[in-house]
């Protein structure tokens, strides 16, 4: 009886229109997840969801969320996530779907996976660069990815410049 264990689910929210991502906030996401779980698994699901569930991290630029679930029932609650078709935030309905990328036992493991995933995304963006300057920026941010917390900011800047360039 040493440690209370949770599972952290790294999800990506996909929308058809990137500008809508910026309107998300963590409470809207939490509400959407709870509603979906209640719809699919009823009262049992909403009871399980109220134990230790929360949205730990939300990145509006890239659409990455960390959700925390208790270890004993995370599969059940995870199975309700595909049924989410839209999130309502500030009166607007954003059609989206959740794509789960990774399940980890701690936030640190999820963060490590996220860094690797972001570097892969940057690599994917490299061939699409329009000019040399963007290419250089992307290469620099790939090289500077690390666990020290600088990676996320570098990635966000890249993403924004890519969107403007596109």
């Amino acid at each position, binding site marked *: 009886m040493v440690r209370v264990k949770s599972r952290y689910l790294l999800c990506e929210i996909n929308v058809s229109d990137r500008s809508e991502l910026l309107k998300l906030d963590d409470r809207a996401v939490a509400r959407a997840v709870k509603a979906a779980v209640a719809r699919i698994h009823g009262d049992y699901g909403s009871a399980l969801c109220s134990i230790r569930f929360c949205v730990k991290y939300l990145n509006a630029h890239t659409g990455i969320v960390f959700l925390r679930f208790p270890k004993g029932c995370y599969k059940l609650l995870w199975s309700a996530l595909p049924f989410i078709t839209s999130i309502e935030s500030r009166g607007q309905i954003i059609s989206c779907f*959740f794509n789960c990328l990774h399940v980890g036992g701690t936030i640190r493991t999820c963060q490590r996976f996220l860094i690797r995933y972001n570097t892969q995304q940057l690599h994917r963006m490299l061939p699409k660069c329009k000019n040399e300057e963007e290419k250089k920026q992307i290469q620099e941010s790939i090289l500077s990815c690390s666990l020290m917390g600088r990676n996320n900011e570098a990635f966000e800047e890249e993403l924004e410049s890519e969107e403007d360039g596109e």
Partner: protein
Amino acid sequence: MQSLVETAAHLGFSTVAINYVFEPTAKKKQEVPSPMPISELIGQLPVVQGRSRPIRVLNRLTVVMSEASHFRPSATEYRAFDLLAVHPTTEKLFHTTCMLCDVDIICISVTEKLPFFFKRAPINGAIDRGVVFELSYASALRDTTMRCYTIANSVCLMESCKGKNIILSSAAEKALELRGPYDITNLGVLFGLSEADSKEAVSSTCRAVLLHAETRKTASGIVYTMKSQQEVLQDSAGSEAPAAKRPKTT
């Protein structure tokens, strides 16, 4: 369509099949739709997430059968499609498709309560032949009653077939109806599959279907023909071509 394929590539799917549904009605001589060439539909194929190859797009035909004469086993129009699927609507048809028909996939309807029960004998026959049963999950995402039917039908199927030879497919019409592979694996558990079976349903069984389709098109999987850019003949590639067979040209 372009956004669908791009989303699929982003989620990590390496092969995608575009489905054409053909429902022969009482009117005879209805033409089987011919598939549009992929290059016209899509253009630049996006690269799959996590790999360095572009996504592979195939054509697939689903024939909704309400009579035995609807499906002709060696019709020439079927050659243009890479995958063949059949959707039987009665018990007798189900039996014939499992045992006799030369298809890759048998679709199990998810939009209505099954009009017949599954029996072990035809299902085992189909499993031996390599035919898979398909469950689609897009209707479950849309509507509550559809969800009930989907889960009911799939649990029924699992009881008879023990989770072998199942594939889960999204009958997605928009890019927002696709789901990632881990999510589909979890959905499979909801549908009654065990966890290992569910993972297989998304990965190895699907690959088995593609190989089955390729061997169905060729002569026992030994000789296959390739399209050539020139109009001149001589194109059979593959290990051995028996001298008696003339290479078929396209």
